[in-house]
């Protein structure tokens, strides 16, 4: 074990991906010092792990990753953060940057790509994966279902409550919330509600 390795807090709900990241970093200057499978768990681990880097999945069970990064920034912590997704998502880099993240990386299974993003970010450079298409310059229309999600978010509903209200599964809710936030160009619930009011969507 390298005692001088850079401690990384990994926030990812998929155990296979967590395991891969652990091994991918094994022979590098980085080490996964803490693993969380939800945003809530990540916030609890922050003090204990004292990470120098955060590697955060976008689609978490309780929040989207940009919300978590924003929450961490509001705590006054500037620990560099990289957001991960499996799909290339339009507007993802802009949403990550707006939330206070320093980079994004696609879950491609390539250790070199992950390590390059971690190294750039640790050096203080930004590292945004260019495979995510740029955000549309105009406002993207929300679908009826996404507007319904927005209405429930405005009422303070959690992802679980949204799933119950729409009679859909947890994975579907994660997709709906993530797409709604990316279309609005927001990173957290309060901001989504504010933007929605501003645009007359609620």
């Amino acid at each position, binding site marked *: 074990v390298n005692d001088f390795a850079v401690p990384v807090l990994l926030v990812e709900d*998929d155990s*296979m991906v967590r395991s891969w990241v652990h*091994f991918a970093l094994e022979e590098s200057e980085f080490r996964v010092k803490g693993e969380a499978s939800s945003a809530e768990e990540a916030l609890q681990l922050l003090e204990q792990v004292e990470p120098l880097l955060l590697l955060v999945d976008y689609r978490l069970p309780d929040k989207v990753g940009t919300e978590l990064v924003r929450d961490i920034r509001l705590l006054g912590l500037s620990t560099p953060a990289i957001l991960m997704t499996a799909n290339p998502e339009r507007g993802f880099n802009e949403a990550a940057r707006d939330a206070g993240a320093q980079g994004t990386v696609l879950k491609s*299974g390539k250790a070199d790509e992950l390590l390059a993003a971690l190294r750039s970010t640790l050096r203080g450079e930004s590292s945004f994966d260019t495979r995510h298409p740029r955000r549309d310059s105009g406002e993207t229309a929300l679908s009826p279902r996404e507007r319904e999600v927005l209405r429930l978010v405005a009422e303070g509903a959690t992802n679980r409550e949204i799933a119950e209200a729409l009679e859909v599964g947890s994975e579907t809710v994660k997709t709906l919330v993530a797409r709604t936030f990316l279309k609005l160009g927001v990173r957290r619930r309060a901001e989504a509600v504010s933007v929605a009011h501003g645009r007359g969507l609620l």
Partner: protein
Amino acid sequence: VSAAPASDRELLEQAVAELAHSLRTPLAAILGFAELLATRDSEQIRRVAPLRIQEAAEAMMRELDARLEQVLEAAADRVPDEQA
């Protein structure tokens, strides 16, 4: 709370986005562990990687089976009675 009706197009887009995500995540794990097996000289990786690859492949198979079943059920629902 009543849910807004989702259009066919919206449901299709959502289903494709979910399918892509639910397949890409285990696929990334398979590719990742295969790469580690090919490039790292580690006894632990040789022991763990095949198990993780199998686990990820099984997750993909389950996902495909579940989605195909949904598609077949949806298609069956759309067949008019006189043609059923």
